[in-house]
């Protein structure tokens, strides 16, 4: 543990939090239709798609559009994966992807998960990466943001019927938010040494004089959006630990910012669009506070290192599975940011973390990917918890609970609880089944509690739409491809649908004026309360499972047993 490391952690969180305000306000003006720079382009798209941008949709229409769009996206990606062998831009001459892997990968990218059961540079053609994956990197991110904006409007409007037009939100989000940011970040990455080429590979002469085939490709463009859109699917198999995907301290710093920039900013957008800035900052402070706390915990665990290894004479923290150019602080910070933000990219191997260090990414994902969560999905997930917090504690001030002037009633609570059920059902359910079937246990690399953590991590990552993996876990089997695929699918849409139903219910309610008797949701006390509710409603149910995984492993490590 060193002071510069602690300072860096603080600094990275602070910078990302600081940029949330301008970025969030800009996003608000985009979705309120005040950014019209590319109006003719926009209008062209609408004409092409036969969409009337002035016609707004109710919750049902909006949800249907989201689902239809994603179903089409899934089908297109699945076909590309299955047909890539006969499609152009295939310099390495890869064949078709297997059916279950193609299903898994198509689900993975449409759900903004980017779980990679495949090795990118050895399985997918450039066309698949660019047309299939990168497209989904943009539109799955835009889908999440659009849903979050629809929910935001549910609070902003009073006794209204409509939540906006999904096609307009999708277009504006891509055109004014994601594309410009991705272009800037991609160019910056190219300048910092990330390759961007249509070549397949080149042959390099190693120091020992041997020849090595180095895969390259259009990496920078994909890396930019994989971070900005909290996707995480790397161009290369080892993701951001790969020296061409993330060559230096500065590319790492830029990507760290890109991972959490939009999710944090959307909290500010929420406050701005509902004309309750302070409430937006309360959500932001919970998100940023959690990032800081969890990064601190992970860094503490990793830099404290492994006492057994240290007893063998290896001084310092736990560097197994970490890149020397990043060290403990930037590796744990990356792990925290990516798992907090539902971004599956890794720059170190979470599997090799100390038990408690590995618990941090696992637990952050189990909390529902809301701290700050995926783009959009983090915000609407957070709002679900805010609704629960307001409902439980709000009663204590003697009024029917309200959040931002909207009464929280039976239907809203029902939908919020449905959304909360998804994570434990899929994570614990599939983990428990996989933990007792001999066939599925073969995928585990390590014995004991660590093996359990590996299985749990896979389903957690899937249901949380994160996409990162405890390396060492062989997930490319029919069972895991299918069940993790289902986890991703339900982890995304079984939350979007109830959330949209909440939006539909809230938008129709009158927006009540705040008074002295109104439960205050724009205070530090509420931020604390919200954090507590997230831990209790989102985390408590995982406590027994975590106790059997990382917690017992940690105690065993202190006792001298490793796995």
């Amino acid at each position, binding site marked *: 543990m060193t002071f510069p490391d602690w300072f860096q952690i603080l600094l990275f969180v602070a910078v990302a939090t600081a940029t949330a305000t301008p970025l969030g306000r800009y996003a608000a003006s985009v979705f309120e239709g005040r950014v019209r720079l590319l109006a003719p382009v926009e209008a062209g798209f609408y004409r092409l798609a036969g969409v009337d941008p002035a016609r707004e949709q109710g919750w049902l229409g909006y949800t249907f559009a989201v689902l239809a769009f994603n179903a089409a996206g899934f089908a297109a990606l699945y076909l590309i994966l299955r047909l890539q062998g006969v499609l152009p831009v295939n310099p390495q001459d890869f064949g078709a992807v297997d059916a279950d892997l193609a299903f898994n990968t198509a689900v993975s990218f449409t759900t903004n998960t980017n779980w990679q059961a495949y090795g990118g540079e050895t399985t997918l053609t450039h066309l698949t990466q660019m047309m299939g994956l990168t497209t989904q990197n943009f539109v799955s991110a835009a889908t999440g943001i659009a849903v979050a904006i629809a929910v935001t409007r549910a609070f902003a409007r009073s006794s209204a019927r409509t939540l906006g037009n999904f096609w307009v939100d999708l277009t504006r989000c891509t055109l004014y938010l994601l594309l410009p940011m991705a272009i800037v970040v991609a160019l910056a990455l190219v300048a910092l040494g990330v390759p961007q080429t249509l070549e397949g590979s080149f042959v390099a002469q190693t120091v020992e004089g041997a020849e090595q085939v180095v895969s390259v490709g259009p990496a920078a463009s994909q890396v930019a959006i994989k971070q900005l859109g909290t996707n995480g699917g790397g161009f290369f198999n080892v993701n951001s630990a790969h020296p061409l995907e993330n060559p230096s301290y500065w590319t790492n710093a830029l990507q760290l910012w890109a991972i959490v920039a939009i999710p944090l900013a959307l909290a500010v957008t929420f406050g701005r669009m509902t004309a309750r800035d302070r409430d937006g900052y309360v959500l932001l402070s919970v998100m940023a506070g959690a990032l800081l706390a969890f990064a601190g915990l992970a860094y503490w665990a990793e830099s404290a290192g492994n006492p057994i290894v240290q007893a063998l004479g290896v001084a310092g923290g736990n560097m197994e599975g970490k890149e020397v150019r990043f060290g403990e602080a930037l590796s744990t910070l990356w792990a925290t940011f990516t798992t907090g933000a539902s971004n599956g990219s890794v720059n170190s191997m979470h599997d090799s973390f100390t038990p408690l260090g590995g618990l941090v990414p696992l637990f952050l994902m189990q909390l529902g990917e809301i701290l700050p969560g995926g783009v959009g999905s983090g915000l609407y997930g957070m709002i679900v918890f805010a609704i629960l917090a307001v409902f439980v504690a709000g*009663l204590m001030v003697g009024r029917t609970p309200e959040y931002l002037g909207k009464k929280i009633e039976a239907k809203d609570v029902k939908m919020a609880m449905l959304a909360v059920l998804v994570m434990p059902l899929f994570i614990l359910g599939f983990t428990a089944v996989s*933990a007792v079937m001999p066939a599925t246990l073969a995928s585990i690399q390590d014995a004991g509690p660590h093996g359990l953590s590996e299985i749990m991590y896979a389903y957690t990552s899937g249901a949380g739409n994160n996409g990162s993996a405890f390396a060492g876990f062989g997930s490319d089997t029919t069972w895991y491809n299918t069940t993790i695929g289902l986890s991703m699918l339900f982890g995304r849409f079984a939350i979007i649908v109830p959330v949209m139903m909440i939006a539909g219910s809230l938008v129709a309610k009158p*927006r009540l004026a705040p008074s*002295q008797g109104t439960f205050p949701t724009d205070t530090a006390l509420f931020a604390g309360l919200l954090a507590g509710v997230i831990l209790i409603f989102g985390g408590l149910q995982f406590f027994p499972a975590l106790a059997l995984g990382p917690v017992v492993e940690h105690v065993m490590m202190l006792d001298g047993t490793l796995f």
Partner: protein
Amino acid sequence: MTTHTDTTAAAPSGFSGALVGRALRDALVKLDPRALVRNPVIFVTEVVALLVTILFVRDLVSGGDALFTGQIAAWLWFTVLFANFAEAIAEGRGRAQADTLRRARTDTVAKRLADPARRDVFQKVPAEDLQVGDVVLVEARDLVPSDGEVIEGVASVNEAAITGESAPVIRESGGDRSAVTGGTTVVSDWLVVKITAGAGASFMDRMIALVEGAERKKTPNEIALDILLAGMTIVFLIAVVTLAGLGAYSGAALAVPVLVALLVTLIPTTIGGLLSAIGIAGMDRLVKFNVLAMSGRAVEASGDVDTLLLDKTGTITFGNRMASELIAVPGVSERELVEAAVLASLADETAEGRSIVELARDRYRATIPQTPQLADEAEFVTFSAATRLSGVDVGGRRLRKGAVDAVLRFAQNEPSQQPFQAPHAFTAAVEKIARSGGTPLGLTDGARILGVIHLKDVVKPDIKERFAELRRMGIRTVMVTGDNPVTAAAIASEAGVDDFIAEATPQDKLDYIRREQAAGRLVAMCGDGTNDAPALAQADVGVAMQTGTQAAREAGNMVDLDSDPTKLIEIVGIGKQLLMTRGALTTFSIANDVAKYFAIIPALFVVALPQLGALNVMGLATPQSAILSAVIFNALVIVALIPIALRGVGYRPVGAASLLRRNLALYGLGGLVAPFVGIKLVDMAISAIGLA
């Protein structure tokens, strides 16, 4: 607020032996799963209790650890029984009230008129055979057979059966006092009543059903809370069921009773068990205030009220104008003025007249002559609507007091040396009083104007603090009055209301309520007349006065049996307290879970993974005692919280922010800490007596 001791509607406040005995019996009856399924948390507890009981029998037969399984099973049943007991005791308190009400409703015979115009031809029919629209005759000493509207006659009616107030009230056709209630007794004269409620639907029937809890429907907020609790139950079911698989992986075969123990301690049994008791007790508190809520929804809504519309008269002011000051014109001494005022008011039996005498005695230290002594020499002039004057002719003096213009006219017509001219000081004082919202009365001796009596609406002494209190709770108060805007503004500022509606017509009230609602505020009001009905119906909480018309009572969603408009303030407090109690106990229940994990998880895996013993922060004696203590604590905490559920958590009229801080500290942090202490204590106790 009038506090009166009523004989019928009061609930037994304590826990009498009979009440507890009956509740214990009812707790057993409520084990019926068909009834219990309405309460998902407790239903799940019952199902698993049954499961563990079967395992206990198996252990007895096969020689397993029957002592442990049996104890777990027993405490699970206790958990269910305690929850049932809480509900039963809350219901029992209401039932006692219902029984007294029911006595008033026995076998009434109605005199049905075939022709409403002929009172002498009637047919005796049992009250329950009456149809809506029937016309009946009710004579002295008859019970009113059902709710109805008086269409002919005037009578005094004893309504003690429902209000507990033994003084009879007047009921007459037309006007705002035309509604009669079934079960009340006509004391004198007769009434012809048109029946408005069929058998079983009368006010009394509804009242009985309400206090008994038989008709109790879950309120919207209760439904929402139920969903939350059911959702949490499912979440923990998933966690516990999957734990069997995870445990198997870790080499720990988990016994069913142990998993059940974990499940039951984690699901929110505390609030689940107390939820309906809280609701019943909340209605009960209202009934004790002699307010009948027609639905639980209205009780909840009253906690949400943002704006209170209060009638000025009777609520904010005493209702009668009272003399507050005597102002003499130059040349008239204060003593002379006071004496004249007393003389002119001695025979005036109106409240205003009496208030002048009282003011003279209390503030101006005047000696008050006895009326009979004066009677011989004096001739009293009583007030008449034509002259608008009253006074006395005594010893050559012609003292008159009354409306200013009437006094001036009187003085002008009196014989006098000079042409009559009202003193400048007199007109100035009159104007000043009028501007301040008061009513000036002139006082003259023949043509000699003596001074002005300042009558004013006296604001109740503690009302300003009440309004300040309401403001801290975030509630705006609006005064409704028929006074002119000047008078209204003066009283409004003295009483400290936030707004007022002067010269209010029913339409004004309705418009005001609609405006408030459009701005997103919930409005409560009380009213009694037929013309209040639209506003009562429009308001989110409408409290109709029992003395009011049938129309008003139908339109409101609460009826105040004491007809005391100040009660609106208490009703709001009760509504808030109901919600707060739910929130506080829910928070407490959920916060409890943390400690229970720390008790049970290490105990579950101590054989397979002894390292998890590190989580046994409470230092519980053995795995079995740890599990058992958690289950026992979980059951006992329900009983311990019954008093809070019935009484409601302490409510203070402060802002939401400080209420939240206080309750969060008490029930949130308290809920985190209490089970650590409680489980440890139970563990020490059962280890000491060797149960585990």
